[in-house]
Structures are given as structure tokens and as C-alpha cells.
């Protein structure tokens, strides 16, 4: 059995890459993932990728932020140490609005960022997982899991037909920055 783990089709043109996706899909070859240096419109629909759930995460973090700060200032300014400021009642809701607003945004922003990092293995200090370094530069790459997808020659031919400038048979899944 061959040692090839991933087959990468490298394209220099996004339209050729789209053709490559079509060729593979017509032959029922599952695509592992696509790596491009820029966003390609309509690719999610083509690949059948589900809508991102990041919005729900954002909503939950926003609610969390609002709850945390509201309970915090409620405890501080109403329960623990009520103060008379300009004759206002201690539980003066309008005063709480700016804090609540800011913390909702703060929690939403940080929550979304960290969730995104966690979901995409991009956490700081971690070596990024990259299959081919030129995917961040000038190559549009289709990655196919080599195991179970045989024969490899046919896949190579399909990619070449679509206009791949290079097809790689990698024995390691990721190359990391050394």
C-alpha cells in the first residue's frame, strides 16, 4: 500500500480550481478541504458546507457579558455599598446601561475571536497547520484524503484535466513552519 496520505491539486486560477471540484464531484470523490489565498464566492454552496454557527456563539457571549456586568454592578452599587449620587436611587437602571452595553460588546468580540481560534486551531503559540505553504500566497489547493480514495492515478488525472499546475502526493498531512 502506498504511503501517500494526502493528494493536493495546486491550481493557479480559481476558475480552474472550480472545474477541478466539479470533476471530482462528478466522480464521487470526497474532497477533504480547499485552501485558497482569498475568499471565493459561492464555494460554500458548492462544497455543501453548513452555515457558520459563530453567530449563535456571539449571541450567547453577548448575553453572558450583559448578565455578568449587570449582576456585578448590582452587587457593588445596590447590595454591598449603596451610595447617594446626586439624590438618585441606588438601583438606577439608566446608569447601568452604558456598562451593560460595553460589556456585551466586549464579551461578544472576545468570545467570537477565541471561539474562532479554538475551532480553527489558530490559537497563539501553536504552529499553524498548513498543508502547503503556497496556499497563503498564489496557489488554490484542493486536498483529497488519499486513504480509501483509489486509484490515485485517476485522481491525479482528473485534477490535471481541470488545469492543475502541480499535483502532490504527500506522506505527511501537514507541513509546519520550522
Amino acid at each position, binding site marked *: 500500500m502506498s504511503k501517500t496520505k494526502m493528494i493536493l491539486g495546486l491550481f493557479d486560477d480559481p476558475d480552474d480550481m472550480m472545474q477541478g471540484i466539479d470533476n471530482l464531484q462528478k466522480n464521487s470523490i470526497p474532497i477533504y478541504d480547499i485552501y485558497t489565498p482569498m475568499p471565493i464566492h*459561492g464555494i460554500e454552496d458548492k462544497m455543501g458546507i453548513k*452555515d457558520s454557527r459563530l*453567530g449563535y456563539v456571539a449571541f450567547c457571549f453577548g448575553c453572558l457579558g450583559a448578565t455578568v456586568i449587570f449582576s456585578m454592578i448590582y452587587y457593588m452599587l445596590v447590595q454591598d455599598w449603596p451610595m447617594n449620587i446626586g439624590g438618585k436611587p441606588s438601583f438606577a437602571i439608566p446608569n447601568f446601561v452604558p456598562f451593560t452595553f460595553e460589556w456585551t460588546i466586549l464579551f461578544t468580540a472576545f468570545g467570537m475571536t477565541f471561539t474562532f481560534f479554538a475551532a480553527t486551531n489558530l490559537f497563539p503559540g501553536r504552529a499553524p497547520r498548513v498543508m502547503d505553504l503556497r496556499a497563503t500566497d498564489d496557489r488554490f489547493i484542493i486536498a483529497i484524503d488519499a486513504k480509501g480514495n483509489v486509484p490515485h492515478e485517476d485522481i491525479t488525472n482528473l485534477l490535471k484535466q481541470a488545469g492543475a499546475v502541480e499535483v502532490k502526493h504527500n506522506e505527511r498531512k501537514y507541513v509546519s513552519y520550522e
Partner: protein
Amino acid sequence: MKTHNSIEERFQFTGTSKTLSLVGIVIGIIAIAFGFILGGEHVQHTYSNLLLMSYYFVCVCTAGVFFCAYQYAAQAGWSASLIRIPQAFAKVLPLASIILIAVITFGLFSEHEVIEHGKKEMVPYLYAHWATHGLTTLGSENYDAIIAGKAPFLTIKFFYGMLIVLLGAYSYFGWALTKTSVDEDTEGGMRNYDKSFKLACIFLVVFGFTFPIFAFGVIMSLEAHWFSTMFGWYNLAAMHVSGLAIMALIMIHLQKKGYMEWLHVDHMHSIGKLIFGFSIFWTYVWFAQFFLTWYANIPEESVYFYKRWEPEYKFWFWFNIVMNFLAPLLLLMSRDAKRVRSRMMWTCLLLVAGHWLDYYIMIMPGTVEKPGFGVEEIGIFLGFVGLFTFSVLTALSRFTSLIPKKHPFLQESLHHHI
């Protein structure tokens, strides 16, 4: 793509929408006549509602000019294929301005007798707080030092000058932006687009500085003793949200009639995002104005909110926040919600009603004795809805094509995808 077949499409304004808008106008005229015939408090109610709706009318049309201008200034591509809708608003702005000035003129120069502080006085129906005779004349029994201090701004001469200059300027820019776009259809090339860009930039500077003055004059001076520097931005936000909501409604209406088939769900999504965002902005400025006044608690400032906190207004004062903040926040927050036509339509209708309530809360406490919601409110609202629909759709049907055929970003707009 189907769009290439219909690029010469022309809008025909016929059928039920035309009949209904004419019926609306008739209802409006009957309601105005009803108010004047009944007399007494009803006359005041009629004037206040006329001011409310003609201000609303002007604001929505101005929002059309504003929308065109910032789309051009930002060199936005997505909106190119729907820009005819705000352009139709811009074309109606001169009519709206004339109606507003007429309403103000009638309200300002027809006086009625009121009893204030135990003595009878002749005051105009609108702007009684500063336009009553003798308020600024030293030694007069009506003399009011605060109003006298604001006399350079609040005089009939300056007031009319401001109205005519500002509305004239906004109408001119609306006309010019529409004209360059129509010329572009026949001429092609970049000349007209470059011209639009310049016009849009100049308009935005002029508009940004002067719209608050317009709002101070027309609405804030109804209660001339009170002032708030946030008021202009607050009105700008209200005007923008209601303008966008009505644009979305017209877009949905046209699509239901089978026009503008090139617009798809992504265009509605983009407008939805603007409506959502500017509803939040509206709340931000609403709260900024309220919060500072509430916190400082200076009598001459809090009197404005004190009045709106009387039992007859208090519920509506807070309901305003529910309609214009909570409703769009929760209804339009998720991505998918902005892509559902019925959801967008109902939210926009809610916002149109919500901003009517917003203006109601701004205008009524300063002008009428007792708030009401009766024939004048409903009738005059329907009248202006009819007038707006009729004039905007007529303006839209005058365009030789519903799409700016040679707009440089047209292809980007037709393939808009988010």
C-alpha cells in the same frame, strides 16, 4: 442570467396600488376637512398631525438623497441595481418640501385664542413657544428672556430662510444625483459617475452640518425653551431608519409585482443589515439624549422628559423603545431573518409605525392640550402614505429603465453575494 433580458424594464404604475394610494389621499383630505370643520381642539390636532406627517415625508425623501450620496461616496457596488428607488425618493423631495413649508406657513400665521396663566392670548397653531407676538419685545407683557436670547435663530425671517435654503439644497443635490445617473444611461463612460461622486461628497458635508439645524428648527423649536444638542443626530437616525425601511418595502412591493427580478435575497440582506445597524444607532442617540438629561437633572432640561413622563404619554414613551429598538434587534438579528421576505416586510412596517410614534412623542406634548389617537391621526397618516406612494411610484415610472444600465458597478451589483 435572466437579468440580461429585462435590462430595459420600465415600471408601469397601475392597478390596485394606484387606486389604493389615491384612496389614501382622499381619506387624508377628508380627515383634514373633518378636523377643521369640528373646530376647537381638533384644529390644533390637525395642524400637529400635518406637521408630523409632512416632516416625516420630507425626512423619508431626504433619506433617499442621503442613501444615494453615501453609496456614491463609498463607491459601493451592491446598490447600483436598486439605486432607482432612492432616486425616486429624491425626485419627490421638492414636492415634500413645498408641502412642509405650506403646512408651516398655515400653522404659523393662523392664530387662535388660548388662556395661559389666567389671561387670554392670541397664539399661532404651530411654534407658539417662540412665534407668539411680543415674546422678544422688551417691555411687552409677553416678554420672555430665554426666547429673546434665542431670537436670532427663532425669528420668522431666519426660520423661512433656513427652510428654503436647506430644503432647496437637499432638493438640488437629489435632482443632480438623479440627473447624472439618467444621463449615464444614454452617454455611458465615467464622466457622470465621477460627477456623482463629487456631488455626493459635497452633499454629505453640507447635509451633515445642516440637518441638525433643520431638525432644531422644525421640531425642537416647538418647545423652544428646551434644547438638546443630540436632537439633530437623533432625528438623523430616525430619518435614516424610516427611509431605509420604506426603501425595503418598495423593493419588496416591486418584486411582488414582478419587477426588478435581478434583485435577490442578498440585496435584501444588505438593506436589512443597514436597518438593523441604524436601529441600534437610533437607540444609542435616543439614550444619549435621555441619559444626560436624566443624570444632570437640571429643571430647564428635564422639563422635556417630565412632560413625556405624564401618565398619558409614559406608556408610549417607553413603547417607542420597544418598537424601534427591541423589535428590530430581536427580529433582524440572525442572518437568516434578513433573508426572509415576509420577516423583512413586517419588521419594516413595524419600523414605519414605530417612527411615526417617535415623531408623535416629539411633536404632540409641545403642541396639543391632550393627546389623541383618532380620525386626524389615522386619516392624515393614511393620506400621506397615499401621497408618498403615489408620488414616488409615479416618479419611478418616469425612469426609462428601472436599472442604471451603464453604471460602472452594475455587474458587481447583479452578482452581489454575501
